[in-house]
């Protein structure tokens, strides 16, 4: 009896130790699924896990609201959360993310503005102006002023249904130079000025798009002639035969990033993991799967990204120079107000 109890006890102890051991060496990461997460998994998550000698569990979610529920319920099972930069900035301000330790994560060779207190940039994408090459040929509109010019470029437009990335182009079309856009938007009357400009375009907007999949589909079907949207989606659509081209002129440079959930089970290991996937070799590898650029400049110097291909990436220095980097501080401060005004304009 005594013996049995001891045996059982030691077996239990071993089992407990084994679970604890594997729990220490396993991270859970959550992202948006689809071709995007596939690229992340192949280029970042699996190779980095191998390098660190740990295992990684991948899950998918729909957005930061899911994380909020978990944190509020005190049941955080995720360590690393892939997010858009804007949502991460607001989630950080709200207190549902851990502060990142930039002594562990090396961002010294990052492009400026592509990391923040609570989230480190993983890839760069652009909100670009794209057009139907069947309607306009290769010489399509080259600026937001052209996008607004319905005489020079007659045709149906599609524009974003929510306010993120929607006001900046309007101001540029209204003659505000890119480097003054956020200054104007922060000043009294700035948001109203942008909304007024969008109202001008409203009769020509056939579709207000709600997702990347949607604006890619619109171009595939030839439903509209001019559209705003995310560059990677258009490249994928083009591969599928869509008649679409886009320009980086006056595009909005933005990034996706990685954050650590507040109360993550393995915070320190997660920090090391983020340090690993922020290294240039991982970022260079990532571009092979989707045309989103690296946030780490050094990725371009490794020589693993072909020169011709590198020129198509949003964060290539030549392309980045033509663009306006999205100002997250502005979004933290003004998005709620801007969104209300935008929804108001849409329902008018």
């Amino acid at each position, binding site marked *: 009896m005594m013996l049995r109890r001891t045996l059982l006890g030691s077996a239990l102890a071993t089992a407990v130790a084994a679970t604890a051991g594997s729990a220490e060496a396993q991270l859970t990461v959550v992202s948006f699924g689809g071709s995007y997460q596939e690229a992340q998994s192949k280029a970042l998550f699996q190779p980095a896990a191998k390098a660190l000698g740990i295992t990684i569990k991948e899950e998918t979610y729909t957005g930061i609201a899911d994380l909020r529920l978990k944190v509020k319920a005190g049941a955080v099972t995720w360590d690393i959360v892939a997010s858009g930069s804007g949502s991460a900035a607001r989630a950080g301000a709200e207190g549902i993310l851990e502060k990142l330790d930039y002594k562990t994560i090396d961002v010294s060779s990052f492009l400026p503005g592509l990391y923040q207190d609570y989230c480190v940039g993983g890839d760069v994408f652009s909100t670009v102006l794209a057009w139907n090459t069947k309607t306009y040929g290769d010489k399509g509109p080259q600026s937001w002023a052209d996008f607004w010019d319905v005489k020079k470029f007659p045709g149906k437009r599609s524009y974003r249904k929510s306010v993120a990335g929607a006001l900046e182009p309007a101001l540029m079309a209204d003659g505000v130079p890119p480097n003054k856009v956020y200054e104007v938007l922060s000043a009294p009357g700035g948001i109203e000025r942008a909304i007024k400009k969008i109202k001008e375009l409203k009769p020509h907007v056939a579709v207000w798009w709600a997702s990347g999949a949607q604006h890619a589909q619109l171009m595939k079907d030839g439903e509209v002639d001019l559209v705003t949207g995310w560059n990677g989606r258009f490249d994928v659509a083009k591969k599928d035969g869509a008649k679409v081209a886009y320009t980086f002129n006056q595009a909005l440079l933005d990034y996706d990033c990685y954050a650590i959930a507040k109360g993550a089970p393995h915070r320190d290991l997660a920090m090391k993991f983020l340090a690993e996937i922020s290294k240039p070799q991982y970022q260079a590898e990532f571009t092979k799967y989707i045309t989103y650029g690296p946030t780490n400049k050094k990725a371009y110097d490794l020589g693993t990204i072909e020169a011709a291909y590198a020129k198509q990436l949003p964060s290539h220095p030549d392309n980045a120079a033509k663009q306006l980097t999205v100002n997250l501080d502005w979004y933290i401060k003004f998005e709620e107000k801007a969104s209300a005004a935008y929804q108001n304009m*849409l329902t008018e």
Partner: protein
Amino acid sequence: MSADAGPNAAGLARDARVERVVLLGLSLPALALVTVTMILPVGWLFWLSFLADDGSLSLVHYQRLVEQPSYARIFRTTFEVSALATLICIVLGYPLAYVLSQLPPRVAGVAMIGVLMPFWTSILVRTYAWLVLLQRRGLINTWGMELGLWDEPLALVHDLNGTLIGMVHIMLPFLVLPVYGSMRAIDRDYLKAAANLGAGPARAFRLVFFPLSLPGLMAGAIIVFILCLGFYVTPAVLGGGKVIMVANRIANDIEIFFNWGAASALGVVLLVLTMLVLWAASRLLRLDRILGGHGT
């Protein structure tokens, strides 16, 4: 219980109690399910809508609904679109149900399969199918222009037109079924009697058949209208961002603002308005009788 109720009264009362307990036991699983899946979440939603972002009790979310004009417009759109869809369903569905009810039952059964067929496909699939058909270079526009019926592509989708087409397609069976049922139940002898008394077919229809089919029509219309109020997918896919209904705005508020409170308040207002409509309808139309309650 009176004393002179007979020697067996106590036994009968006990049996009745046992029966009640058994019935309660039988309905417990259903009650539990409704509580867990319906009452608790709705209660939680109700509670959330009265909490400010810092967790204190507040009416801030309702205040926002009043202050921002877009919310009032969205509610108006929701009720207008639902009313229009219901109206179109009546115009299309009533004659259809009439024709079906006049067919021999066996033929009508086969035709009914045609009405019910859409139920076998998911709403999402059907909605995207409409998108493929209706868009600028979709089947309808391509054929129409090739046949020379029109020169420029018609705007059939990404607006109110597309939304209504999609909604009516989904909702039509909900109208046809109750109307068909009530028409089938009408005794043919009434119409013969009307004819006997000198009414022409049109007059007999107007004075006898139509009033008798009215309860079914009302039931169908109310079901359609209330289901329409909660539509999300169809306006999202076929409305082109121009037809924004309450459900769409709820999704928007949650995605953009991490704001459960604001979204909950919208849900609560929609729920209350829907209940008001039901209540008004029941007062006006004796809904209990239509929906088969213990009406007199």
